[in-house]
């Protein structure tokens, strides 16, 4: 049983914190006892603002959902998974001890020459990528689950179309026990679906003045992190034409403030 002395009288914030941290330790010990490893360190994305919001980076050993750009109401509208951002996170994940990446589902097979670009250091990332052509929901769920439990895998990037709450729970448990990061791609109309993911992101294309593609990355939900800004956490990232690297431009909130009055479809 978890036990902590409930605060009887008005106590200082410090005492509260001590109680909370004692409880957190107990929960962690319990989780380790049941085989849920929590030793996975977060994956630093290299985007400072996002890293600091997330407390070090995208959590390894957890499920992350990424919603693509498209119409949220219509199921037939075309949508595209945010490959550039995801590939960046997956590449960052492979820089540690685990080095392999698994891509499940044909929809999320990124174009490899664009991933490497001219960057020699990204070569192992592409060479250690395995592409799995799983089509049905059952096959995808099975393959993702299996890959997440393999200790050699750094990240699983998967087509998450049509995965129900129960399956995302199973995948979250698999990720927690295996220690790999699971990056699920979901179509925009599934935003209303429930899921057990630790974080939910939305990536949408942003008009750019030069030839560099830009996206707004929006953190919709993050378990265990207090929201930093009133209008939610938004950033703009850009893809460098020549190197193929994705880097942070500025927080989208600030940019929007400065461009007040211009027609902005995201506010619709």
């Amino acid at each position, binding site marked *: 049983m978890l036990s902590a002395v409930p605060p009887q009288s008005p106590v200082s914030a410090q005492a509260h914190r001590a109680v909370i941290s004692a409880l957190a330790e107990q929960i962690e010990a319990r989780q380790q006892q049941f085989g849920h490893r929590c030793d996975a360190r977060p994956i630093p994305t290299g985007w400072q603002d996002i890293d600091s919001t997330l407390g070090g980076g995208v959590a390894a050993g957890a499920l992350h959902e990424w919603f*693509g*750009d498209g119409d949220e109401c219509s199921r037939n509208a*075309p949508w*595209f*998974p*945010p*490959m*550039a951002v995801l*590939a960046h996170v997956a590449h960052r994940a492979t820089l540690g*001890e*685990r*080095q*392999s990446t698994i891509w499940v589902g*044909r929809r999320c097979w*990124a*174009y*490899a*020459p*664009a*991933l*490497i*670009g*001219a960057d*020699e250091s990204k*070569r192992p990332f*592409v*060479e250690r*990528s*395995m*592409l*799995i*052509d*799983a089509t049905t929901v059952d*096959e995808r769920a*099975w*393959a993702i689950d*299996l*890959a997440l439990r*393999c*200790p*050699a*895998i750094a990240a699983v990037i998967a087509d998450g179309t049509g995965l129900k709450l129960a399956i995302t729970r199973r995948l979250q448990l698999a990720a927690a026990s295996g220690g790999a990061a699971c990056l699920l791609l979901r179509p925009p109309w599934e935003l209303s679906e429930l899921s057990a993911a630790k974080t939910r992101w939305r990536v*949408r*294309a*942003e*008009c*750019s003045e030069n*030839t560099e*593609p*830009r996206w707004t990355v929006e953190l919709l939900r993050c378990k265990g992190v207090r929201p930093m800004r009133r209008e939610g956490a938004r950033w703009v990232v850009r*893809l460098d*034409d*020549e*190197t193929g690297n994705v880097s942070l431009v500025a927080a989208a909130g600030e940019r929007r403030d400065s461009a007040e009055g211009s027609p902005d*479809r995201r506010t619709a």
Partner: protein
Amino acid sequence: MALSQARVVLSNPRVEPHRGDRNSASLRGLAAWSSRFSPHVAVDGDGLLIDVSGCARAFGGEERLLALAKKQYAALGFEATLCIAPTFGCAWAVARFGTPGIVPEGEARRALLDLPLAALRITGAAVQSLHEVGIERIGQVMELPRSLLPSRFGDELLLRVDQAIGQALELIEPVRVAPPPVVSQVFDGPTTQWEAIAVCTRVLIERLASLLKEKESGARRIDIVLERSDLPPESLTITLSMPTRDARHLWSLVRPRLERVNLGHEGRGVEEIRVGASLVKPMAHEQVESWGDRRTDHQQELASLLDTLRNRLGTDRVCRVQVRESHLPERAMVLRCGPEDEPSRTALLGAIDRPTLLFANAESAAVVSLAPDGPVMSLQWRGGESRITTTQGPESVGAEWWRRREPCRSYFKVQDEHGRWLWLYRENQTSMWFVHGIWA
């Protein structure tokens, strides 16, 4: 030729020490390979002795066998001098000193007459003492009275002459190739009980694994044959991406396949199970696990993951990526589904601007543009129309010169009103427009 002589002839010869052990080891390997011509192959000094008596018929005659062997050795990179003769001694002599080919039955004696004494496989001293009395050819030895030979030149000379002409027995010691390990279990009577068959297969896999462990090797391919009394035998083949002798892993691959096997009708069924490793690769004994290398651990974990995926989804649905140097975008990325034997080659294409998603098939689109190569104004694609705000291009992309038939394309990178960057191309011959990718 001595090394000093070679140095005089060549200004800069490459010198490598002679490794006799490696030579004979590779000759043994070649002997094992040569078992395709005959089951009896022996290594003899610097050559091979192959007992092809009775085997030539399988190849359609001795001439064909000889031509085939010559071709196959050449394919391996060996320039072989081949000779078929009635005796080993005769073949040995003719291959080295005579005109290689076929010595017909009963012609051994005549084929040897003109050959030098060294062709008799006798010691240098014996050759020397024969030379001293003016004997240089085998024919001359044969003319000498037999009774004189042993006392003057030793027993060996007479034996070798007799062996060469087929009057004395000669035995060779064939190279034995270890057969691939197979374990089997015969049931008392045929059974259709899946549980019994599963337990038995599992035990057999464990036995096979321990056999492989003794031989310090691992299986790359496992064959399981179920002999059924009323149906033809069912055979399951499982190919592995890395040599393994982990019984648990093998069983996890075999089990789903075994579940789908038709065991036969009631009252009959499976009579015998055979589990064999048809492809075996050397695999060193592993250290105690806690000392093991993390990297190789990961490799094995990954290999077993891929095996499981391949086993359920099929080999062609688990691929690796390869980046190749090609201008055509769809050729620059290749998917390879084979085993992980060969290292993957990834070319660096340099700083080129390519979309992060490339459609498997370019999608037809309708485009309005100001001039043939001018900025694109609007795009109709996938049932929607969008205004194009920015256009970059054209970038002309053509196939390699040896693929001249494929048309050239002009690629444009365009941004639509929503900020999406698309990759369009116009086929130069037909002026048709396609969307090929997106920066997603």
